């Protein structure tokens, strides 16, 4: 029995390969995810361990409670640590912001460059890659990446703003590698001597104190001494533990990456399971006679069942092995790609293939394959021995059973109901999860209902191809609906991928239009000026100067302060704006003219948080006027992001908080002023203020869209795997069907169907299958995309990205045709006489 099974497998190597490939892709993706994250983790651990070698004890601030002020260590602590017994040396690390000025005279980058201390001696953990560390206050080092993008090299003079935005010049004496520090990698960094770092960043405090223990003093002894010297309020850890903690924190980061990737991997595995299920179902159907013969000559049901399971186990093992190889390659590629994109990853670490990854991949591959083959295997045991004697395997006729209809209706109704409930809920995460659950249940309904849908949908999408392709087209249409169950499973696999892709397209499309519409509706600004550091402000003179410019129609400046609002001590941004012609922010009821002295307009979220409604009184703690009591004049939708959450009249604000710089300026050019002219004027006005960043509305939109596009591309790419697997499924189903219809094809050829026509027939069949899958996917994706966007924000501008979706459909059809290439070639090549004789 075992021998017969294995011989059968070997005889159909191509089919075996195709089937295995489907699972292998899924396993490969999952194994690859593990190899990738394990490798990154291993790299991190190694780097952190290297750091720990230098540090015997690390002093960190106790985790802070106040979120506004990052936790820090007072300068005085350093002396205490140095005085502790067993301490050979201790250095405080300084970290803050100090904006590097680029060659254009403006602060470099979207965020201010970090400023940090480069300590001397054995505790130096900054990796200087060229030049030297700064020795005097006139010297500084720059991180390699910033140096490259901003065009600085060792020996250059660089200008940096200190925390009060005064300019300082330094000689660039070296470049350094930010290593694994994500934040530094993002902002870029300038390194100074410790004293200079304190001056530049304005931080008299330390973020960390590193200690080297004296000769003969263990890390733990030193730690105890330091902890005793400092007293409570600090976190004092040994270097070893410090490295462990760092590694763990990074592990959490890779954990998120892992979870995200695994989700896509699971989708791929689900699709692969559908493909396997279908393949085995077809195989069992095709081998009815063979199995009946086995039963005739004495094989028990158990043996027949076992033979199918054995076959699936072999497929599962093979796929897992293939998948592991694939995953290893994939992770290698991903690592190279990520590193070349400049992601702060440890380099020079060989990909790690742990026994856990191997075990998991093999278990997953085998379990999914065997699991998917269980049902078909059970069907195989039902083959009666008498079937061996029938001359022709009957076509499985499919009738819509009552059970199926009831089950499908139940799932569909339940899914639709849950989704509707989610849509009806207030926007938020819960609503989204409810919609997702509804979508899943509905999808199960589609899975059950699929076979019923295949024929009508096939007729619908096949109408045009059948018209165009003549007889082959018509035959293809018949063939596609011939075995509805088989076609349904084949296409559903594709539907999974297309549904998710459409869903993403709809959601991002909707977010995009909602965002831009809001932007246009609220205040169609031409330019936006913001300080590089979002928490900083700009001198008011800048706004004054702009207001004098005749080419500009309006300059609205916003000023804000974070302060306690309400009785419970919650903090909100309280702010105001300088009125300008044409600026009429939208309120829920009434106009901005309601904002009279002694009143405030508040965002809806503030109203909800504090339990306020229009007409209520609200208390605001101010800097100059004590706690004031204001009347709520109106509420507004905070999503527009224009007004500060608590907005008071300008005069009141000055009285409450005194002189506060502008945190944001919205500028409109006069009609008829060209975009480049306006931009030049605004930029010229901002030039003296290096941290004032000018963005045009188009740029803001562009950046937003770019990041959306990026996201869509990545997600679509990851979902592409599921689609690829489903295409293998189409190819597999088709080649099995072709095999089944060998004699039929020969008959058609004898009757005068040319080879190209036969190929076309199979291509059209695959096209129809692909289109059915895509169509159902698009319908589901649009429907649930709509439901999902309903749960995100109020009054969304629902948008179906038609071209994108049409492209999905066209690509699915095309992919179907591609999947048919091999089976079609085989069918066309078969000799007529030989095929007629089979059977």
């Amino acid at each position, binding site marked *: 029995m075992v021998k017969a099974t294995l011989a059968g497998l070997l005889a159909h190597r191509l089919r075996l390969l195709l089937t295995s490939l489907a699972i292998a892709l899924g396993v490969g993706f999952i194994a690859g995810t593990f190899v990738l994250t394990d490798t990154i983790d291993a790299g991190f651990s190694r780097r952190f361990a290297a750091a720990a070698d230098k540090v015997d004890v690390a002093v960190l601030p106790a985790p802070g409670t106040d979120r506004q002020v990052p936790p820090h260590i007072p300068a005085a602590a350093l002396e205490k640590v140095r005085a502790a017994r067993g301490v050979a040396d201790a250095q405080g690390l300084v970290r803050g912001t100090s904006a590097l000025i680029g060659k254009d005279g403006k602060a470099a980058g979207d965020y201010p460059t970090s400023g940090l201390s480069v300590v001397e001696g054995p505790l130096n953990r900054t990796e200087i890659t060229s030049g030297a560390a700064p020795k005097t206050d006139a010297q500084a080092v720059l991180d390699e990446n910033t140096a490259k993008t901003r065009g600085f090299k060792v020996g250059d003079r660089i200008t940096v703003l200190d925390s009060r935005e005064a300019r300082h010049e330094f000689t660039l004496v070296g470049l350094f590698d930010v290593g694994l520090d994500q934040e530094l990698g993002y902002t870029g960094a300038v390194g100074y001597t410790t004293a200079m770092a304190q001056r530049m960043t304005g931080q008299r405090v330390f973020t960390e104190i590193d200690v080297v223990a004296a000769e003969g003093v263990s890390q733990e002894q030193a730690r105890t001494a330091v902890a005793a010297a400092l007293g409570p309020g600090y976190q004092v850890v040994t270097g070893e533990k410090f490295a462990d903690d760092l590694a763990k924190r990074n592990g959490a980061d890779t954990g998120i990456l892992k979870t995200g990737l695994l989700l896509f991997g699971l989708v791929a595995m689900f699709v692969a399971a559908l493909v396997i299920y279908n393949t085995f179902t077809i195989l069992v159907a095709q081998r009815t006679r063979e199995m009946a013969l086995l039963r005739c000559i004495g094989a028990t049901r158990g043996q027949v069942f076992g033979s199918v399971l054995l076959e699936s186990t072999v497929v599962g093992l093979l796929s897992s092995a293939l998948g592991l190889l694939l995953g290893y390659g994939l992770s290698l590629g991903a690592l190279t790609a990520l590193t070349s994109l400049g992601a702060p990853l440890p380099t020079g670490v060989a990909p790690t293939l742990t026994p856990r990854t191997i075990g998991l991949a093999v278990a997953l591959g085998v379990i999914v394959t065997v699991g998917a083959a269980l049902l078909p295997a059970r069907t195989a045991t039902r083959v009666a021995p008498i079937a061996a004697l029938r001359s022709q395997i*009957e076509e499985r006729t499919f009738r819509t059973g009552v059970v199926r209809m009831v089950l499908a209706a139940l799932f569909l109704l339940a899914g639709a109901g849950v989704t509707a409930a989610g849509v009806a809920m207030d926007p938020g995460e819960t609503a989204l999860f409810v919609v997702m659950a509804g979508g899943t249940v509905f999808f199960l309904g589609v899975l059950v209902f699929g076979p019923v849908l295949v024929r009508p949908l096939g007729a619908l999408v096949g109408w045009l191809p059948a018209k165009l392709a003549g*007889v082959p087209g018509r*035959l293809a249409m018949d063939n596609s609906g011939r075995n509805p169950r088989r076609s349904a499973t084949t296409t559903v696999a594709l539907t999974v991928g297309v549904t998710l892709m459409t869903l993403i397209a709809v959601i991002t499309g909707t977010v995009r239009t909602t965002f831009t519409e809001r932007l246009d509706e609220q205040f169609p600004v031409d330019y936006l000026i913001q300080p590089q550091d979002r928490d900083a402000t700009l001198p008011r003179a800048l706004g004054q100067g702009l207001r004098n410019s005749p080419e500009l129609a309006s300059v609205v400046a916003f000023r804000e302060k974070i302060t306690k609002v309400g009785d419970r001590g919650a903090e909100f941004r309280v702010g105001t704006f300088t009125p300008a012609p044409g600026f009429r922010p939208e309120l829920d009821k009434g106009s901005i003219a309601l904002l009279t002295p002694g009143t405030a307009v508040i965002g809806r979220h503030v109203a909800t948080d504090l339990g306020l409604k229009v007409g209520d009184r609200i208390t605001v703690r101010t800097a100059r006027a004590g706690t004031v009591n204001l009347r709520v004049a109106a509420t507004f939708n905070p999503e527009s992001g224009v007004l500060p959450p608590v907005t008071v009249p300008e005069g009141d604000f000055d009285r409450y908080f005194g002189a506060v710089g502008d945190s944001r300026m919205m500028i409109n050019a006069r009609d008829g002023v060209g975009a480049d002219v306006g931009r030049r004027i605004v930029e010229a006005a901002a030039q003296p203020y290096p941290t004032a960043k000018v963005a045009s509305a188009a740029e803001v939109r562009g950046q937003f869209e770019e990041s959306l596009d990026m996201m869509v591309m990545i997600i679509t790419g990851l979902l592409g795997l599921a689609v690829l697997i489903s295409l293998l499924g189409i190819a597999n189903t088709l080649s099995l069907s072709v095999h089944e219809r060998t004699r*039929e094809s020969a*008959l*058609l050829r004898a*009757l*005068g169907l040319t080879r190209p026509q036969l190929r076309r027939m199979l291509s059209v069949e695959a096209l129809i299958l692909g289109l059915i899958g895509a169509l159902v996917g698009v319908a589901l994706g649009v429907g649930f995309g709509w439901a999902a966007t309903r749960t995100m924000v109020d009054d969304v501008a629902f948008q179906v990205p038609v071209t994108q979706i049409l492209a999905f459909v066209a690509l699915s059809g095309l992919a179907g045709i591609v999947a048919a290439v091999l089976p079609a070639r085989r069918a066309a090549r078969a000799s*007529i006489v030989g095929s007629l004789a089979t*059977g």
Partner: protein
Amino acid sequence: MTLTGGEVGARGAREKAAPAVVAKGLTKSYGRGDTTVHALRGVDVSFATGAFTAIMGPSGSGKSTLMHCLAGLDTVSGGQVHIGDVELTGLGDKRLTLLRRERIGFIFQAFNLLPTLTAEQNIRLPLDIAGRQADQDLFDRVVETVGLRDRLGHRPTELSGGQQQRVAVARALISKPQVIFADEPTGNLDSRSGAEVLSFLRTSVRELGQTIVMVTHDPVAASYADRVVFLRDGLLVSEIHRPTPQSVLDTLMKLEA
């Protein structure tokens, strides 16, 4: 030679027109070296237009091979085959396919019909493939002759074996081919259904002037033909005209002896 409606009548007169199919020195071997099988060893044969010819011979004598070579389903190893004025040997697959489509009809022993199509669609299939319109008169006549009027909407699985073969006969007739090749068309049928199918074939020869070449094992089936040729070991060894079951059986006995 092309087919027009008028010619059918002319051929109906069973005059000694040019033969429909001619094979000269036909050889066919399978395999190479020691294992070579010479299925045909030089067959010269011609089939008259408007005649019903049966091919007989012991199992393995090369009957099916001969038919496949004559019909352009298989390539020959040597010799020539003419269908009307067209020489088959040397034609590429595309030309052969078009030739089959235009000039040849087939009836096989089994699996004659496409399971997805109804009887009527199966009958019209060769015309559809060729992109031609069925001659409605001919269609009605053919359907009437084979007695399938009330079965046209059924799929093959809903038809008996005999009915299926009758659909196959109708399909072969509908495109008015120059010649119909039938390989044991009644091999799977009981004697009554077989007799029905055979009489349709004979009727189509008599009334429509159709040319039919049929391979058979059954002396009774062969007796429906106008002429029987006998093959043995890949060679044409004998032939009889106006056969009866008895005369066919006698010849076969002689061959096997």
